[in-house]
């Protein structure tokens, strides 16, 4: 056997071995921020890594980070589909229409859009009931504030964020009738400098608790510098700022969902579904309530968490009025998912108006 034959044989063998170990499924992820944001995208990427670890060689994952919402994301998704992705997770609200558009062009590729409400035969939606975590945060915030002013950094005025504001307000108000919410819209998911500026502006106005619905840890750093300001980790534990200013957190745990959906594609059982899980199912976690919180407040917050998890208490339970004073939920009535999914109003007591 000549040297040339040997080489050819080796290459052929390698190619065969390669095809034997070829991935059954390629899973793509589209991220709105960098994987190192320490918050939202960081947790989605943890979910991706969990998929890789769980399936080993059978699944290949690809991702693209810092993809702007809008036309750019359509290009990225198309690229992924052309690269041979079988399942694509698009992990920001603003990818909703692009996901639907690209999905129509690639009927054999499955898409999963996070936090949106538009579905198709090959597009599922999934989200977590973050508002349950917001209820716990609101409770702690209402009990911890001394100035009775709570600052809230919103990203975009979309139902998910408005739900969070309402839920936090309802539960802060319940334990502290004097509480006021100052809401600042950053119009970005990720811009540490702007998020820090927003936190500083709120602190300047007297807020001593900052809730954030943006993705980076910058507001935590701003609060720490200011001194006496309480914060909560958002999307990720952000425990590097514990025990103070970060006193607790909402943790998104996407890994079980990503593994289950990838398994469904492998098994050929994938269908378009709408998943919305909360604390009970483990998709929303409440990060450790730190030692900076008084023991009785901690116990109340944990009881609230457990009641939400078991389903015995719903975060939106009447009597509740809308901001304009009109009745929304009667005594003991709970909000239905449809209203929650499209929530575009504040509850009674909030003084701000929702920008349109």
């Amino acid at each position, binding site marked *: 056997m000549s040297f040339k034959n040997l080489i050819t044989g080796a290459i052929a063998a390698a190619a065969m071995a390669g095809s034997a170990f070829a991935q059954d499924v390629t899973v793509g992820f589209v991220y709105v921020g960098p994987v190192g944001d320490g918050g939202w995208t960081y947790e989605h990427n943890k979910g991706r890594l969990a998929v890789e670890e769980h399936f080993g060689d059978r699944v290949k994952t690809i991702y693209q980070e810092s993809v702007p919402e809008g036309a750019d994301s359509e290009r990225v998704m198309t690229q992924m589909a052309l690269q041979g992705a079988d399942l694509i997770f698009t992990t920001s609200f603003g990818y909703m229409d692009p996901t639907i558009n690209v999905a129509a062009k690639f009927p054999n590729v499955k898409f999963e859009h996070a936090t949106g409400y538009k579905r198709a035969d090959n597009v599922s939606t999934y989200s977590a009931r973050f508002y349950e975590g917001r209820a716990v945060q609101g409770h702690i915030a209402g009990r911890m504030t001394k100035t009775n002013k709570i600052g809230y950094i919103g990203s975009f005025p979309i139902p998910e964020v408005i739900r969070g504001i309402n839920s936090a307000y309802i539960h802060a108000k319940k334990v502290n009738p004097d509480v006021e919410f100052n809401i600042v819209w950053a119009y970005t998911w990720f811009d540490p400098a702007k998020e820090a*500026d927003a936190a500083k*502006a*709120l602190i300047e106005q007297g807020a001593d608790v900052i809730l954030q619905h943006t993705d980076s*840890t*910058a507001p935590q750093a701003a609060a720490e510098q200011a001194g006496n300001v309480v914060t909560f980790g958002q999307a990720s534990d952000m425990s590097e700022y514990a025990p103070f200013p970060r006193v607790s957190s909402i943790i998104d745990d996407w890994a079980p969902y990503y593994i289950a959906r990838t398994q469904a594609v492998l098994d050929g059982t994938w269908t378009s579904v709408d998943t919305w899980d909360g604390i009970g199912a483990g998709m929303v976690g409440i990060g450790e309530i730190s030692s900076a919180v008084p023991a009785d407040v901690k116990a109340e917050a944990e009881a609230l968490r457990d009641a939400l998890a078991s389903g015995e208490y719903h975060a939106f339970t009447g009597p509740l009025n809308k901001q304009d004073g009109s009745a929304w939920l009667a005594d003991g009535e709970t909000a239905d998912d449809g209203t929650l999914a499209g929530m575009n109003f504040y509850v009674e007591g909030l003084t701000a108006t929702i920008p349109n």
Partner: protein
Amino acid sequence: MDLGGLNLFVLIASLMVSATPILLAAIGETVVEKAGVLNLGVEGMMITGAVVGFAVAINTGSAPFGFVAAAIAAALLSLTFGFLTQVLLSNQVATGLGLTLVGLGLSALIGKPYEGLKSVVLQPVKIPVLSDIPGFGRMLFSHDPMVYISLIIVAGVWAWLKFTRAGLVLRAVGENHEAAHALGYKVIRIRMLAIMFGGACAGLGGAYISLVRVPQWTEGMTAGAGWIALAIVVFASWKPWRILLGAYLFGGVTVLQLNLQAMGVAIPVEYLSMSPYLITIAVLVFISARGNQNAPAALAKPFHASN
């Protein structure tokens, strides 16, 4: 001075802090463009400065060292751009975009071990006597040293370009590199130095974000500040004092709208946020209608001594 709960002095003080990163980056880029080079890699140099400044500040325990290291690192990075565009004559637009991508990737790599860590921050210095003036003391004389250094750099660049022979030569290179070459000026050497100055300034601007404004390291934390700096250079029609105006305008609008929101004033945030860009477009339309854009004539044109 209170305007319906809005303390004007505090507002101006915070807009100066908010504008300093883009001011530093923009004044550096002005010098680069005045020398006839278009470096679109500002964002990449800023983020490199941010991560290197943060890492060095943590390891040495000194924020000033962090700033120095940030300037050096970003200047070195810009040198790769200089080598590619000036010596190998690569396309400046493409190379600049490439520099941004390299900077973003490189910073993510360097920054991995520093995520979630806390660094020493640059503390504000209260200037004796002056900082005690009511209102104005808080507004003008209670900042950290970098705010003053950025203003000194603006004044220095203005004076240097306008009054010194070296500044004249740099402008000549940017207007007509062949004529400058014929007169015996070292076009490439001058441009290399300008590129490095621009890199150093962008690095300082980036470090200001990670060491003062936020202060922490987060991947991608400049979030487009470098592109705003590039817009400001055009907005200012390459004039240093207008760079200051532009940077404070862009920084001011951001801070103003956040503060107005925090006060509960219902304002159309979208319009306020887009206003600096609208003004930039208006300025561009205005100056091109006048037929004098003031752009350096040799901007982004390759130069080779054989031509």
